[in-house]
């Protein structure tokens, strides 16, 4: 029975590792490859940590299990090893992990700065829209075509809900704010997440590498309808975005008369 328990501690980390190995093929992994440049960097750092952590996990779990196995296979009545510890070992396992940890944290700094520090935002990033979270939807405001986005609303601004159109291949800036409580702008495929804090306008930037639809969900508890904040980021070429905004402008100015309907029908 002793051996069973020791094997038990060998067994479960093995199952854990196997389940992680098969996970990507079963869809239990990232929803898609990273679709933004910072997303690629984030994934790179993730895999770096994953490798370090996996090695540590396997080593410590198996050593633990082996220590138990040693105990389980010990002849009955034989004396336990008498030791109060070892200075040398203590020093080794203090210094080695601390180097690894410092290495991990230094490796993160550049990416962190690039993502978050406003002065390090890409120079040619354009402000495309303001996203206002509210219970329980995302309200989008584009500047009137041909004008700059400002933090206050201007006549002619274009409004939409739950669908954000951005151009691909270039960094874009979104002004994030909330109308009521705290929310978080989370796009799993783009690896973008930022809380929307009441009273603040927070700029976030990202670039989308490929044309497509990407999820936009809320990642900060915002009330009973937290899960309902389903939206999408539509990434398309600049010309398609311009065309979309033109159509949006026409729709928004619809006055219900026939001529208008005919005009927009031609497009």
């Amino acid at each position, binding site marked *: 029975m002793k051996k069973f328990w020791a094997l038990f501690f060998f067994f479960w980390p093995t199952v854990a590792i196997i389940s992680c190995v098969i996970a990507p093929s079963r869809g239990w992994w990232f929803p898609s490859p990273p679709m933004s440049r910072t997303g690629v960097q984030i994934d790179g750092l993730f895999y770096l940590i994953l490798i370090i952590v996996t090695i540590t996990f396997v080593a410590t779990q198996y050593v633990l299990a082996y220590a138990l196995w040693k105990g389980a296979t010990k002849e009955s009545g034989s004396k336990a090893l*008498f030791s109060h510890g070892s200075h040398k070992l203590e020093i080794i396992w203090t210094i080695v992990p601390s180097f690894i940890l410092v290495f991990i944290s230094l490796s*993160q700094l550049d990416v962190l700065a690039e993502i978050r520090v406003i002065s390090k935002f890409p120079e040619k990033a354009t402000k495309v829209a303001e996203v206002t979270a509210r219970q329980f939807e995302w309200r989008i405001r584009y500047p009137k075509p041909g004008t700059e986005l400002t933090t206050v609303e201007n006549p002619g601004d274009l409004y939409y809900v739950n669908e954000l159109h951005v151009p691909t291949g270039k960094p874009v800036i979104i002004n994030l704010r909330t*109308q*009521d409580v705290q929310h978080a702008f989370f796009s799993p495929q783009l690896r973008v997440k930022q809380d929307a804090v*009441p*009273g603040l306008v927070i700029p976030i930037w990202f670039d989308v590498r490929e044309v497509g639809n990407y999820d936009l969900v809320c990642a900060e508890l915002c009330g*009973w309808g937290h899960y309902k904040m389903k939206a999408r980021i539509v990434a398309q070429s600049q010309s398609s975005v311009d065309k979309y905004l033109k159509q949006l402008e026409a729709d928004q100015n619809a006055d219900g008369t026939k001529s208008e309907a005919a005009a927009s029908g031609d497009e």
Partner: protein
Amino acid sequence: MATVSPALDAHGHADDHSHGGHHEQSFISKYVFSLDHKIIGIQFLITTLIMLMVGGALALAVRWQLAFPWENMPVVGQLFGLFRTEGGQISPEFYTMLFTMHASVMIFLVIIPILAGAFGNFLIPLQIGTDDMAFPALNMMSYWFMWPAIACFACSFFVAGGTAGPGNGWTSYPLLSDLPQAAPSSGSPQTFWLIGLTLVGVSSMMGSVNYLTTIINMRAPGMTLFRMPLTIWSMFITAILQAFALPVLTAAGFMLVFDRLGTIFPTDIHSVFFIPANIIVNNAAPTVGGGQPLLWQHLFWFYSHPAVYIMLLPAMGMVSDMLACMSRKPVFGYKPMVYSMAAIAGLGFIVWGHHMFTSGMNPALGMTFMTSTMMIALPSAIKVFNWIGTIWGGDLKFNGVMLNCSGFVAMFIVGGLSGIFMAAVPVDIYFHDTYFIVAHFHYVLFGSTLFGVFAAIQFWFPKMFGREMNDTVQRWHFALSFIGFNCTFFPMHLLGIAGMPRRYADPYLHGYLEHLLPMNRFITISAILMGFAQFLLLGNFFYSMFRGKKVGRNPWNANGLEWTAPSPPGHGNFDIAPVVYRGPYEYSSPEAEAIGQDFILQTVPHVKGVAKITHH
């Protein structure tokens, strides 16, 4: 000099209670409003075990919704006819209540009180060799303040009509928790919740002051600081953490209450600590204010991050004790263990910002907090290595205690390693508020702390009741809990990587999460298995209390002072006032061998003819 240590008497005597000059007590003063630290500890233990089942039931309700979203919820959905026309289909705000109260109950009514309240109370005087706490009345009050807290939490379920108890998460971020109109639960339920939280805080504070005083002033002769068992060290450091961190939470709680005065009195006057101007929620008038919601997060996590260690350190200390005993070996690196606990506590105060990496605080702060958070992994790693070192080469006893302790170490490794992902800000940007976080902290709080507690319950049970628990049942309980636990929480890492956010009543609304339903069903089934396995523990606990095999003073052949007292110790603890001559972990030492055993009690003086053990 050499008095015969009572512990050498293998079978405790029934007449031990007759000494000490404590007079006869009525049932009420002996078992209810007791001043005796042991009774208070046991009161805490039983209360928290019951709360554990309450919290577990809430968790299963959460799991049901995630496995079978919006399907009629058994039992919970039918209670009180809350969802009659919906046929038991719960409402989304009810779901927010379920996970909020699961967390609140588990953290504030189970983990914190079961460690500090139950084991801290029971063990501190016994292990340092004194007759009771420094302030017995304060100690009693610390228990009885739990009940108003429990009552407040219970009220908070029902004050808003039953379908909406507190539902703003246990973190209660403003403005959701601040503006009464922001959520169904943000009115009076949130107020009751805050009051309950404050009362738990008062209880913890009374306990921690008491522990600090007792440990500093009331140690038995010869019990130097570095002869204290690691349990005592951990309780001591925990008490320091509580004493310094709690006031901040209490202050923040009061600030929030003042922001919400309108929910207590019919008044329009209130403060605006966390309320910015011009916020319109639920069609109410725009707010007037100039407050800052992030302030709450700073204050809250300034307490709650140390609180994570409050929820962990005592278990670490107890596991060190138990591993040494069950391996028949000294703790590997006693002093590094002490220093690393102190380092965890110290660093624990400067890492709170890692909960806020996506909150919009200054990114420069993010870098600082990342580095300090990485560093806190170091003492944790040292402790893990030392535990493995303790087991290494030991004469292992594979009983429930040992298995649960090994489970503790194994789970703590997982919880610690998954924490590194979150400490790294860029990676955390992706993982923040996903199920990866849920997996991580359950590995720390359940996988580590609760498995440690399962071991501790069995280990000190003989001292509490003079009987032992059935070990076979305990091993079954361990196996089922451990398998159920890992099947429940390990897949949650994968859910997190797949981007499933926390606190979603219906994640499958989102296309990229739809395929995770089968995995969530698997998790729920595992959670049910794990939940029902706890009945083994409870059954064993209460059965053994009355029917367990009677044991003597020192059934585990352990070294600590508590094992020199009768089982259970009478009021006043020790029949012979203990004097300490040595450290707590001298298992299998040459001195012990010289007297023909593999342990040597702390009260045993130097054994003639054997070289004195000097170390460090």
